[in-house]
């Protein structure tokens, strides 16, 4: 029997679209490559206990082939992805891409890129949703629904001016000592900072401060970076587990959809996939929700449309958040011991007002505690013995602001397919001309704000990450109020194939300076509500 809905991809967008459809009584089949991770080791151990109790801790933390060690002179962007999360980025055999100006990350994991996220959940402000061509009141209910499903901690504080409040916020997580001190400094300097357009407050994080469903609350083991063993940090695979409790849900892992086949009337009749086991296989479909992640969905969409039209197609408007990492040293924390048993990802955020509300710049503040230290120690300009001893004094004082910038759709950033026998994505990204000036100005403001918080930024240490590093891809098949081919309706229904919905970031017409995962999930819920 043909299911009423076929969802392609199990990432943040796909699972929330599927869950909404299931709750509305639809039959749903999910096609997915579905790489799976391993069960967490010693789930009750804290990070330090883990080092002590594991038989081979180096394999756990560095990988069995030492692949997570950062050696000097490696030029690639350092993501610090632990071996336990390697599977998130493990591509199917033969997968490749060709990119200029862009270093994309792809995921074929069960749960998608969200399996390796850091949980930031930021609703869009009124100015940021202006380009979205639907009734803006729809956001509120969708955000609340997602918050109810995944559990988001947060607080009504100074950052609320940049990210509206919604229902179902859980009480915030406990602050670590370093973050407490930063907040105390902020309170003392609040007026001066606010006059300069800088605000500090709690980030919104999809980490539970009380149990929800089969997930436990955060118990501060300090293991977030290495994979939360309790499921306190939300990942999309949790929603996939919930979908699997519905008899009307069929999960088909091990298949990589290459394209969608349409009939002569332009209606999609099948999803064509290669399976791990062997040759191409066709899955007949009624309605399709493409949710493989903006880039992989774009690839499937391009392959489908080129088969119909017979000529190459270029999709313009690719967006991603530029990120700049600004490390800092909190002078008040110098030499102080710190507890690894605290929450490890960002607990605080820094918001900078822009010239217009759309130019808002968002920073996530992380106090560094349990990440590997050898990547940092080797950067000090001395021998490693002296560097290790100096690092000991500054470790507890180290922090990092991950500064995010907004992006807009432009014709010179595009995605197309190569002409190989097995076409690959070709991605070309060109930043807009104003970017360098915008970055310089914002980084200077971040440094000034940090200085007011009793922190210094070592000169020359701010690091501009390559485009693609933020993994917030969007904009290739935008939703528009009216339009033609290669766009969707405001409810994300393709204008090329009437029974196709694009429910991930591909349809976003604007990319604010925020982690968009929460908005992706909310939009997927909204689209499913409208479609069924």
């Amino acid at each position, binding site marked *: 029997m043909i299911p009423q809905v076929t969802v392609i991809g199990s990432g943040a967008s796909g699972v929330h679209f599927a869950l909404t459809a299931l709750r509305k009584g639809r039959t749903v089949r999910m096609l997915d490559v579905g790489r799976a991770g391993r069960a967490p080791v010693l789930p009750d151990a804290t990070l*330090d206990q883990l*080092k*002590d109790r594991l038989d081979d*801790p*180096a394999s*756990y*933390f*560095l990988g069995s*082939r*030492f692949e997570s*060690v*950062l*050696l*000097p*002179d490696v*030029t*690639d962007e350092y993501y610090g992805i632990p071996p336990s999360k390697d599977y998130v980025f493990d591509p199917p055999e033969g997968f490749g891409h*060709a*990119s*200029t100006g862009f270093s994309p990350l792809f995921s074929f994991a069960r749960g998608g890129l969200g399996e390796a996220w850091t949980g930031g959940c930021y609703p869009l402000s009124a100015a940021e949703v202006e380009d979205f061509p639907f009734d803006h009141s729809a956001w509120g209910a969708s955000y609340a629904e997602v918050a109810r499903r995944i559990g988001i901690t947060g607080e009504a504080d100074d950052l609320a001016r940049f990210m509206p409040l919604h229902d179902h916020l859980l009480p915030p997580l406990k602050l670590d000592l370093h973050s407490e001190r930063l907040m105390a400094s902020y309170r003392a300097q609040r007026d001066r900072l606010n006059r300069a357009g800088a605000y500090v407050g709690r980030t919104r994080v999809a980490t539970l401060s009380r149990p929800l469903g089969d997930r436990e609350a955060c118990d501060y083991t300090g293991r977030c970076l290495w994979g939360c063993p309790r499921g306190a940090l939300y990942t999309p695979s949790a929603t996939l587990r919930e979908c699997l409790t519905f008899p009307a849900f069929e999960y088909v892992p091990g298949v990589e959809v290459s394209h969608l086949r349409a009939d002569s009337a332009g209606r999609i009749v099948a999803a064509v996939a290669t399976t791990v086991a062997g040759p191409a296989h066709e899955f007949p479909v009624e309605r399709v929700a493409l949710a493989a992640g903006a880039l992989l969905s774009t690839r499937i969409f391009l392959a489908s449309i080129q088969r119909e039209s017979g000529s190459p197609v270029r999709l313009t408007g690719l967006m991603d958040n530029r990120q700049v990492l600004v490390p800092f040293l909190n*002078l*008040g924390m*110098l*030499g*102080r*011991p*710190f507890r690894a048993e605290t929450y490890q990802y960002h607990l605080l955020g820094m918001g900078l007002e822009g010239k217009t509300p759309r130019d808002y710049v968002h920073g996530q503040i992380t106090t560094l505690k349990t990440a*590997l*230290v*050898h990547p940092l*120690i*080797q950067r000090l*300009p*001395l*021998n*490693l*013995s*002296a*560097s*290790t*001893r*100096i*690092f*000991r*004094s*500054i*470790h*507890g004082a180290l922090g990092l602001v991950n500064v995010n910038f907004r992006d807009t759709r432009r014709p010179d950033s595009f995605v197309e397919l*190569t*002409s*190989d026998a097995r076409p*690959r994505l*070709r991605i*070309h990204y060109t930043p807009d001309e104003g970017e360098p000036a915008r970055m310089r100005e914002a980084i200077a403001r971040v440094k000034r704000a940090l200085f007011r918080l009793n922190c210094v930024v070592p000169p020359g240490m701010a690091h501009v990450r390559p485009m693609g590093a933020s993994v917030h891809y969007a904009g290739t098949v935008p939703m528009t109020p009216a339009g033609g081919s290669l766009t969707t309706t405001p409810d994300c229904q393709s204008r090329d194939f009437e029974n196709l919905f694009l429910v991930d970031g591909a349809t976003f017409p604007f990319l604010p300076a925020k982690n968009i995962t929460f908005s992706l999930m909310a939009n997927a819920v909204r689209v499913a509500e409208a479609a069924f």
Partner: protein
Amino acid sequence: MTQQGIFVTGGTGFVGRRLLPLLAGLDRPMAVLVRGGSAGLPHDRATTLVTGDLLAPETYRDALRTCGVVIHLAAATGRASAQALRQVNVDGTRALLGACRDANVSRVLFVSSIAATFPSEARYPYAEAKRAAERLVSDAGIPFTIVRPTIILGPDAPILSSLSGLARLPIVVLPGDGRVRVQPIHVDDVAARLLRIVRDDEFGGETIELGGPETTTMEELVQEIRCASGRPAGRVIHVPLGLLAVPLRAAEAIGLGSVLPITAAQLSSFRYEGVATRPGRRSSETPLTGLASMVGGAPAPAGNAFTPSPALPGECRVFTRYLLGRNPDAYVQAKYTQALAAVPALAPRSRFDEVLIRFAGRGPFAARLADSYASLFQPGSALRKRLVLLLAILETHPPFSTQIDRAPGSASRAAAGIVAHGMLGALSLVAGLLLFLPVRIVRGGIPRKTS
């Protein structure tokens, strides 16, 4: 695919001269665009020399019709004027691509430059021109591959003459801080890669950044070149780039450009990292030529590559004592041995690399001196990599992990520790410099144990 003819521009250039003999081995018809002279080009029945001008497509359009593949090497480089750079690299490429479309050419291989990855800067017209040319190629609607080599070295490498100019001075005057990294590649390795793209029909619209096996700093490279010409390593004076650019530009403006060792525009090579991010190599390929063979000007040696000696048995113990002041346990020793076998990057890549490791293995104090030198002058050395890897192992395993992270407790103790260890570190650096600079000068020699 059918065995189509190959059309080559720039066949008389530095890369072209090494590539043509390889292409001849494919046994496919070949046409080479030349401006006039054809000295040194292959004379065989399969190769047609086409006398013409890149900017005048009518001079080579007919030849293109018999060719399915175009290898576009012709370029203005180095000291050429901004106008010439633009004319040859951009307008020339545009003209060629137009003719390719007319002639139904089905593959274009364009050799660009790593400079195309430098941040956009109007003052470096070469990079701008290469970037513009890349765009033309990728937008031409013809299946293509773009190759961006890093600095290309080898016999008669044009860049060697520029860098030798700097290297031969009694005191080496180096623009910038000299720490910008470069990854030179041998011309024959570039030619071999280009050959493979044509042979295996790899035209999937990819941009391949191509670098050699060793990443070094610009300063190291200049010193290598100096040593290769029989001089000892020289004292280096670093001149801020901004300070150099102004007089160079002024001298060029009054027509003195040709007597200067370098142009203002070329300073960008001293400012931006010239390393390949995606080497585009497969592991099954033959190893690339090492740096030492490149600067010597001799052809790449066959089967004569440097082979490192096995690691010393006491190395892990010495290094752990050096890093943390205590002996490693059996677990750390086992993991270190395992890493040496599993991680190819830990093997020394040059004679001097090995000198550092063997010297450091003599004891914790020797390790401190060698590491101090390496921290500044050989950050990518195998010694440094082994120490970092050992540190990584230690930070996962108590009691070493807790020792690495033991905070001093108060800000005043932290400050005192930072000052003390900073000063000790600086002293070790001076001692390491005094010791290793002379060794570096007598390149290739391993200090023998006197005891």
